[in-house]
């Protein structure tokens, strides 16, 4: 097979970061080629360069043996490279047909001829076995999986030869993933080459022919999937072999820091009672919609309560984030970008945000060197990788953003942490760093309420696991006895 796309010495720098350094590899025609690497490895930058959204500083691209230098995304599309971003770039209020036809509408005397547009649009969906998607439905009425098929069909209509997909399965359910993989196989049979960017190694092994690993902006290896193993890939991604061992569970229980009695919140959860102790990791799990997320919000005062009582450290004050923070409670929300971080503000200020009142001297002036030291201490302890602590949090990778969200509460000296899905969307290396941190904090007496759907972490870290279903606690197990099957059965109610 011939190389369809060749990358030679591709480099790109941003202020303070060498995002790509001398990346050289090639992609064979008619294959599914996976691109893996941790957050911050340079995958997104590489996609942007291939799709014409960014220019490389150095290096050359060859497409079918011809020099390929996309000036902008439009040019890339005309050269046959279509990119499917996670957000898909479709027009939500327009019909499926209008979306498929966008950019090459057939016209008669300058008026769009919708009749003539239908046949090719239908054919493109048919090729994906997606002819059931109604051409006249507005796009926003489709499921995410269907929208993705529309985006792929649109790429086919643009006569794309290379389809670049960025984390296409991130928000799909397993049936939709299955359908997508069928489509990829169909495309392959038609000679379309796919560059498949993903976090999920199981999927890579299922669908890809070859894989390229990037780490810290460098090309580590390109190999056929038949010649490698998941462990090898992980080692290549993180640069060391990971034992992936969970830290040992703590045994010690301190005094009660939180008592919840008969707590209810309309349309979210009902009659919840439990206690959390210092030094304990208490996990709450359940399916999406079980009320576990809302429970976490309510305990921090971020959601109204209808009935029942929440007492932090036996205090009797009203429950708001202001009071919770004052009592020593920290809260790491599910969506760190919208709910936890000041994305355009310096890493340093994000770390010190909750402790600023204590860093304030006479007349409201901040102790600036104290602030710097506090931030440095936490950044070092958590090994936050940032160009500098003055850079905006926005430029950090997902894992380092999450570390910053955690550092905020460590800086504030929180004695309790409510963690909502703390490892969601984070690569495996950082994931285990966060597990170690949780265990270490618990050992030193911090109480941890771990609200998570990630069953392995729930089972391995928690001393006690609560399972929620339809807003109620339906199981309460010691961590040692919790097993995936038991938890799943309790969560699903079968």
């Amino acid at each position, binding site marked *: 097979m011939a190389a369809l796309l060749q990358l030679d010495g591709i480099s790109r720098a941003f202020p303070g970061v060498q995002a790509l350094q001398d990346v050289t590899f090639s992609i064979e025609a008619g294959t599914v080629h996976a691109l893996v690497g941790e957050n911050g490895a340079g995958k997104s930058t590489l996609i942007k360069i291939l799709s014409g959204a960014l220019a490389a500083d150095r290096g050359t691209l060859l497409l079918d043996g011809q020099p390929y230098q996309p000036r902008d995304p439009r040019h890339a599309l005309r050269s046959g490279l279509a990119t499917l971003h996670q957000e898909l770039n479709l027009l939500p209020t327009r019909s499926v047909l209008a979306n498929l036809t966008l950019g090459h509408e057939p016209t008669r005397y300058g008026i769009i001829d919708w009749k003539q547009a239908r046949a090719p649009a239908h054919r493109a969906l048919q090729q994906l076995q997606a002819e059931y998607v109604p051409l006249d439905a507005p796009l926003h009425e489709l499921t995410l999986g269907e929208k993705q098929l529309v985006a792929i069909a649109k790429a086919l209509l643009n006569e794309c030869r290379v389809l670049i997909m960025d984390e296409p399965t991130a928000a799909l359910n397993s049936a939709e993933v299955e359908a997508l993989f069928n489509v990829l196989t169909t495309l392959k049979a038609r000679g379309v080459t796919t560059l498949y960017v993903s976090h999920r190694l199981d999927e890579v092994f299922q669908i890809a022919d070859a894989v390229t690993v990037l780490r810290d902006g460098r090309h580590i290896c390109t190999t056929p999937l038949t010649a490698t193993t998941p462990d090898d890939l992980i080692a290549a991604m993180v640069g060391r072999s990971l034992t992936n061992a969970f830290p040992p569970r703590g045994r010690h229980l301190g005094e009660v820091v939180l008592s919840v009695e008969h707590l209810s919140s309309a349309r979210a959860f009902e009659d919840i009672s439990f206690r959390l102790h210092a030094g304990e990791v208490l996990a709450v799990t359940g399916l999406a919609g079980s009320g576990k997320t809302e429970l976490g919000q309510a305990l921090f005062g971020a959601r109204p309560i209808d009935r029942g009582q929440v007492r932090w450290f036996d205090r009797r004050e009203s429950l708001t984030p202001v009071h919770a923070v004052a009592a020593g409670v920290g809260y790491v929300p599910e969506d760190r970008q919208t709910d936890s*971080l000041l994305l355009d503000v310096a890493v340093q200020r994000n770390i010190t945000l909750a402790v600023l009142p204590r860093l304030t001297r006479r007349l409201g002036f*901040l102790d600036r060197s104290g602030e710097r030291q506090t931030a440095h201490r936490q950044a070092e302890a958590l090994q936050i990788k940032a160009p500098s602590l003055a850079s905006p949090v926005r430029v950090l990778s997902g894992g380092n953003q999450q570390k910053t969200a955690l550092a905020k509460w460590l800086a504030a000296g929180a004695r309790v942490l409510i963690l909502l899905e703390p490892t969601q969307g984070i690569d495996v290396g950082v994931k285990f760093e966060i597990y170690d941190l949780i265990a270490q904090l618990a050992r030193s007496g911090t109480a941890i309420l771990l609200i998570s759907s990630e069953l392995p972490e729930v089972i391995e870290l928690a001393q006690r696991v609560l399972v929620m279903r339809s807003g109620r606690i339906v199981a309460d197990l010691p961590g040692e006895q919790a097993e995936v099957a038991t938890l799943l059965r309790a969560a699903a109610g079968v």
Partner: protein
Amino acid sequence: MDFVGENGLIVIFMLWCVFLSLATDSFLTQRNILTVLQQSAIVSIVAIGEMLVLLTGAMDVSLAAILGVSGLVAASLMINNVPPLLAVAVGVGAGGAIGLVNGLIVTKSKINSIIATLGMLSILGGLALIITQGQTIYGPALDSIGFLSSGVMAGVRAPIVVMFMLYALFSSVLSRTLFGAQLYAVGSNEKAAWLSGLRVDRIRIAAFVLAGVGGVMQVARQGSATAIMGDEFLFPILTTVILAGVSLSGGKGRLLNVLIAAIFLVTITNGMVLLGMSVNAQRVASGVILIAALSLDRLRQRGR
């Protein structure tokens, strides 16, 4: 190049000043410079308040009217023989109280701040006419605070000194105090600030109150007070902060740019008078210059 990137507005302003110095004889004279600064004083001081409100992600379009009302209150008290200092204090207090009402409406009833303060603008405009019954308030009693406008401190007119002092003060408040840090935090991401234990409502209300306090200088400037004396400032205040690049969605803005923008706006009118343009041509030209300056500044930022 980094200097130009960081300080685009200043560079554009300088170029405009260089042009005026070459094109006219009188622009670069001590007298004219002091006139320009004096004319910038009120707008630039009120613009500090507007910037505080904008930093929290809100906007106050009633500031010009607050300026008018607090001036009116002070003036009417003075001509009724209330001691000048007390009258000024009550005027400032009235401005702060109106700001407090604005802040409470915006934070508690969650009305969009532009709509809420637009309502306040109308209420205050009506109240001012009711208080004055359309008459101009003037008299020798107002002369006692004349030093606020015509007094000389260190060889310079008082409003200029006050303007520079307030800018020095707030530049340190914004960059070095807890309150400044909180203003930026609330505007950058209100929800994240709230979930980090900040008293978001209180911080935003404080910005509105401080913004309301800004305006008693006006009564002193003209030695008389009328119901409509704030009106002429409505657009200059908003134009100043927008030209200064203070983000309308909160969390971003540099105080120094606000001062430059306020002075820039005055030099546009001033320069055209010196160039001998007709009043009508001035209106056209000031619009053109404003749009050109803004476009240059935004293009430059995008290029980075």
